[in-house]
């Protein structure tokens, strides 16, 4: 009797045809590194994927009633939520799961960043994850237009208009995206195709690559540990924990979807259907994009009409592109983590980014506004209150990092907080305050790099 004929029934049947034993052996020996660090961060990719599966399933269900088109899109969603049994529930789950997926994804990305899991040999896992994040935002943006209500119409008008700021091909891209010079039913058809066919295909393919990388290389061990001290068996120990967490996520999702079917009522996290889109109606006061685009929305407001020979939106797009570009190539920039050494500067860069986004998001929410948030006095009050909230968050973050994690590197968080103080408390314009903070941060960091280089050179010379 040969090796392959062992086992019982279906297992032997499959094995004699497809040689599945090596695969089972591989899965049996698969381990997750376990050390003194928290294991929690290893589960966030899984929860993101769980919410994505929920999106696919509920999306397919919504497709059975949704009809794109000028005269049918809004009406079919209204019919779905008011007449179809449990139609409101399916839409509510789809919306909640979308937001939870983005929350989970943001947490996954920042934890990867802070733990330096992007360091070699996992650079491409970071890059594929980065593209998956961009696709997820594309899902959010394209899905937003489909109900064809007022809010969706203006959010899409503003969001797509930014494309025209791209040099040379901007106008062409804008027309291709919208199916014409303005947002019309043609835009709806294109976004529908994007949302239900193009993005899902790209997303599934890329998840495959992302997971393949994780399978081949395993999860990143903690920084500095050449070999993980111990491992947790993936089957059944890790997989069961995964499953338990997904069950918990599912429960949270259902409770939220049932009790808050139109969202928590926070601007930017609200999917009340409202009125049908009317291209000839003016934009209404208090219009805001979804919460994960609020920082960008606010940044657009902070730019003056013209600066350095460019139009405000163009310069804003340039700044955002540079920042996102830096974020994409972090695995190659972080040379200390490449050598498996701690890189406190990059942890601090991540925290600085969080404070930067927090301040913009709070401002976009008009927190601290008394009355309509349009007068200069009220805008000043918003900056003032939001600055204090951001400073409070910054103090907590710095405190925890200093005393609990013994971090001693705070130039980027310092610059982000200086920016907040100069703008919110001292009244400098957002961009001037930002330029001062950025120049200071870059100057200090460059000085540090040169000092370290010289020190290394001296140490090398004396040896």
């Amino acid at each position, binding site marked *: 009797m040969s090796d392959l004929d062992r086992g019982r029934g279906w297992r032997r049947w499959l094995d004699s045809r497809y040689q599945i034993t090596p695969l089972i052996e591989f899965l049996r020996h698969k381990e997750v590194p376990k050390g003194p660090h928290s294991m929690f961060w290893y589960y966030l990719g899984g929860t993101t994927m769980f919410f994505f599966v929920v999106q696919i399933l509920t999306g397919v269900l919504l497709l059975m009633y949704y009809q794109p088109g000028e005269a049918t899109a809004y009406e079919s969603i209204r019919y779905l939520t008011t007449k179809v049994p449990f139609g409101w529930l399916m839409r509510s789950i789809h919306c909640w799961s979308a937001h939870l997926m983005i929350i989970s994804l943001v947490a996954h990305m920042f934890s990867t960043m802070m733990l330096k899991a992007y360091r070699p040999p996992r650079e491409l896992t970071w890059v594929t994850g980065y593209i998956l994040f961009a696709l997820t935002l594309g899902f959010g943006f394209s899905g937003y237009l489909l109900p064809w209500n007022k809010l969706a119409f*203006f959010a899409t*008008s*503003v969001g*797509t*208009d*930014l494309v025209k700021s791209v040099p040379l091909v901007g106008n*062409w891209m804008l*027309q*291709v995206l919208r*199916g*014409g*010079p*303005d947002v019309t039913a*043609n835009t709806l058809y294109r976004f529908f195709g994007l949302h239900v066919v193009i993005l899902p295909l790209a997303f599934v393919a890329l998840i495959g690559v992302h997971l393949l990388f994780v399978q081949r290389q395993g999860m990143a061990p903690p920084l500095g540990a050449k070999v993980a001290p111990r491992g947790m068996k993936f089957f059944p120990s890790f997989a069961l924990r995964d499953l338990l967490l997904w069950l918990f996520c599912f429960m949270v999702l259902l409770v939220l979807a049932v009790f808050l079917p139109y969202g928590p009522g926070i601007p930017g996290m609200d999917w009340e259907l409202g009125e049908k889109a009317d*291209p*000839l*109606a*003016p*934009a*209404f*006061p*208090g*219009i805001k994009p979804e919460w994960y685009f609020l920082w960008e*929305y606010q940044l*657009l*407001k902070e*730019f*003056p*009409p*013209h600066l350095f020979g460019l*139009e*405000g*939106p163009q310069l804003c797009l340039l700044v955002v592109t540079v920042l996102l570009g830096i974020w994409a190539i972090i695995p190659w920039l972080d040379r200390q983590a490449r050598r498996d050494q701690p890189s406190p500067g990059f942890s601090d860069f991540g925290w600085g980014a969080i404070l930067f986004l927090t301040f913009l998001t709070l401002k976009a929410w008009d927190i601290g506004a008394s009355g309509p*948030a*349009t007068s200069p006095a009220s805008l000043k009050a918003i900056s003032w209150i939001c600055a204090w909230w951001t400073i409070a968050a910054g103090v907590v973050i710095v405190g925890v990092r200093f005393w609990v994690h013994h971090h001693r590197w705070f130039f980027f968080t310092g610059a982000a907080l200086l920016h907040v103080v100069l703008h919110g408390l001292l009244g400098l314009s957002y961009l001037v305050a930002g330029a001062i903070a950025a120049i200071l941060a870059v100057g200090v960091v460059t000085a540090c790099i040169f000092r370290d280089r010289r020190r290394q050179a001296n140490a090398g010379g004396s040896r």
Partner: protein
Amino acid sequence: MAGNTSNQKSTRRGFFDFLLGASSVAWLGSLLYPVIRYLKPLDRAGAIGPTRLTKEELAKLEKERFVIVPVSGRRVLVLQNAAQEVLAVDAKCTHEGCTVQFLPAESAIWCACHNARFDLDGRVLSGPPPRPLPKYAAERQEDGGILIVAERRQSE
């Protein structure tokens, strides 16, 4: 002698590689060109030229002091100022393309999306828009109707 033949061989191979590469690029280009042309929609066909406001639009103008109407494929904001004059400007904000509105109380044009203000001739008063709103000709005719002329600009 032997070196010479291998050299010849390699240039011949290089030549064919170049030929293969160039024709592959040309082939891809001929595939992509129709797709790229397909993606960009045709210019919208529709009524172009001076447009008279309909009865409903006139009623809305009377009631709300402004109305947004389609003229020559663009959205035009028609408003009535304090002196009862009729003015027309492009309704598409030059910042990020939201639709603006007239605030009669402040005698200003306002965009709700990023809090931009314009005067009634479309000039930027405050906020982030980089350019003024294009102004159009609006004239009240003898029968009380209103005629809007929004010329299609060359650069668009």
